[in-house]
């Protein structure tokens, strides 16, 4: 499933960009710090996954839904994430819905896999 441990790291370039976004101009980031943050991010994903999984299980759901994740964030005291994430989610759902409508109109069959996935999720 996971061939190498590096497969579980988030891409370095992305991390670097995010760091640059978060830091003021002229700030440098040491390599160690970057890798530590990348690792922390991976662990955060695992941590959040585990929490939301247990929340989903509590409701006898097998699928981790967006609600579970938001609840998990709340439980983990990352409440500040919830609002922007909710907005993002709404935007995403809106886009998906628009695309669905568009696909219905067009019936062009150009939908890709991600769209199908999101439809299933919705």
């Amino acid at each position, binding site marked *: 499933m996971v061939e190498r441990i590096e*497969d579980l790291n*988030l891409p370095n370039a992305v991390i670097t960009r995010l760091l640059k976004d978060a*830091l003021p101009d002229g700030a440098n980031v040491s390599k160690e710090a970057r890798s530590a943050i990348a690792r922390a991010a991976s662990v955060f*994903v695992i941590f959040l996954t585990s929490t939301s999984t247990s929340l989903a299980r509590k409701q006898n759901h097998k699928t981790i839904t*967006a609600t579970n994740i938001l609840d998990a964030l709340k439980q983990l005291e990352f409440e500040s*994430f919830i609002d922007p994430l909710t907005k993002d989610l709404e935007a995403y759902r809106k*886009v998906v819905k628009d695309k669905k409508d568009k696909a219905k109109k067009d019936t062009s069959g150009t939908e890709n896999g991600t769209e199908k*996935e999101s439809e299933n999720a919705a």
Partner: protein
Amino acid sequence: MFSNNNHRKHNTIENIATTMNANNNQLGSSVMLGNQTTSCEMNPVTGTGTTTTTTSNTTGTIPKEKSSKAAKNQQPRKPPPTIETFWPSIMQEVQNTTIDAKHQALPLARIKKIMKLDENARMIAAEAPLLFAKACEFFIQELTMRAWIHTDESKRRTLQRSDIAQAIANYDQFDFLIDIVPREDIKPSNHQRKHHGNSEGNSSGHAKASTAAAATQQATSNVENPDVLNVATAVPATTPSNNEALPVNATIPTATITNSQQPAQVLATTAHPTQQLQIIHQPTPAAQTPLQYFIALPGQQPQLVHQLQLQQQQQIPNITPTSLNVVAAAQQPQQLILTAANPNAAAATAGVPHHHHQQQAAVFQNFIPQQAATNPQQHHQQQQQQQVQLLQQVMVTPTGEITNMPITINANQLQFLRQPQAQHQQQPHQQQHNQQPQQQQTTTQASGPPVLIPYHSF
């Protein structure tokens, strides 16, 4: 800031364009740049600006989308699309289908892979990786900014790993990362705080233990579940002293044995008024042989009986009834059976009067019919073994040593043990108990399946 965002979007657009087998990257990216610069309003501090950019992007591109849609619809029919219609259509498609991917630099597949590490996470909604990616972005930026605070404090311009460790240590949200990014240099303030917390916990635990011990020593009849368990755990670790009886006190320090006046005293306490706790001290004749303790909680017994059994030993004429549940003083008792039962929370006997072999024999004989089989044992130990077998928990080798020491407590009895000991009351007329008829009564009434906790001390 601006350039960063532009660069990022530029990258994503380029990637998408390449995946679409387009050759004109330059054109496409330049067009994209023209659109993007208007909507890059990302807030680096909160990391929440991305949502606004998405909305502004979508709204800003709506008019173009219609035209591009028309162009796109024409594409399949016109195999060679003109350069003017092709790229706007591609651009729009990219903007529509990958709204997430545009802001969403973290790869969803990777995130999903990480999520799948959790075996319980079998099914994941399509939105989940998206949310995770977003949350991860926020998380990374928040962690970075909190770490930067420490960088700034030390007047540095390079974010070091120690800053991250410090940030993690300083914010409760990041507690789960403490082991992920361990800190080499521990700030004194944090260290003190943690240490303080630890010491507090320790001291409280100590206080609890001490108070519990004091309570047991004073009340002598109150046995709490932990105490009983302590007895169970402490006894097997004990080493036999020269005298078989002496280790009893020494080996159960945490237990509620309180009578230290007599060289060999075993305290048996009742956890429940209707329960009988029975500790059998069964040393083998040889001094070096391991001691055997049995704690039995047979079912309801109406009366409290303290029974001291001294085989092969002459009983001590005076046994001081200092503590209620304590019994049994013998200078060299090779067998010590202590039985305490609280009769409906009514009475508990403190001192144990003299016991005779005859009494024990009677008790054992009462047990014998209930027993299924007896191990071939040496003379006087047979009785003990019979009782052991009655309790069905001990396996004895021909040499008389206990080879198996299972500790089994019925659920009901465990429950009883856990019940508060307030029910256990001392009664003034304790000493009146513990007569032979009562012992026989108890033995006969122990018809319920008794639970035996054998203890084996070396």
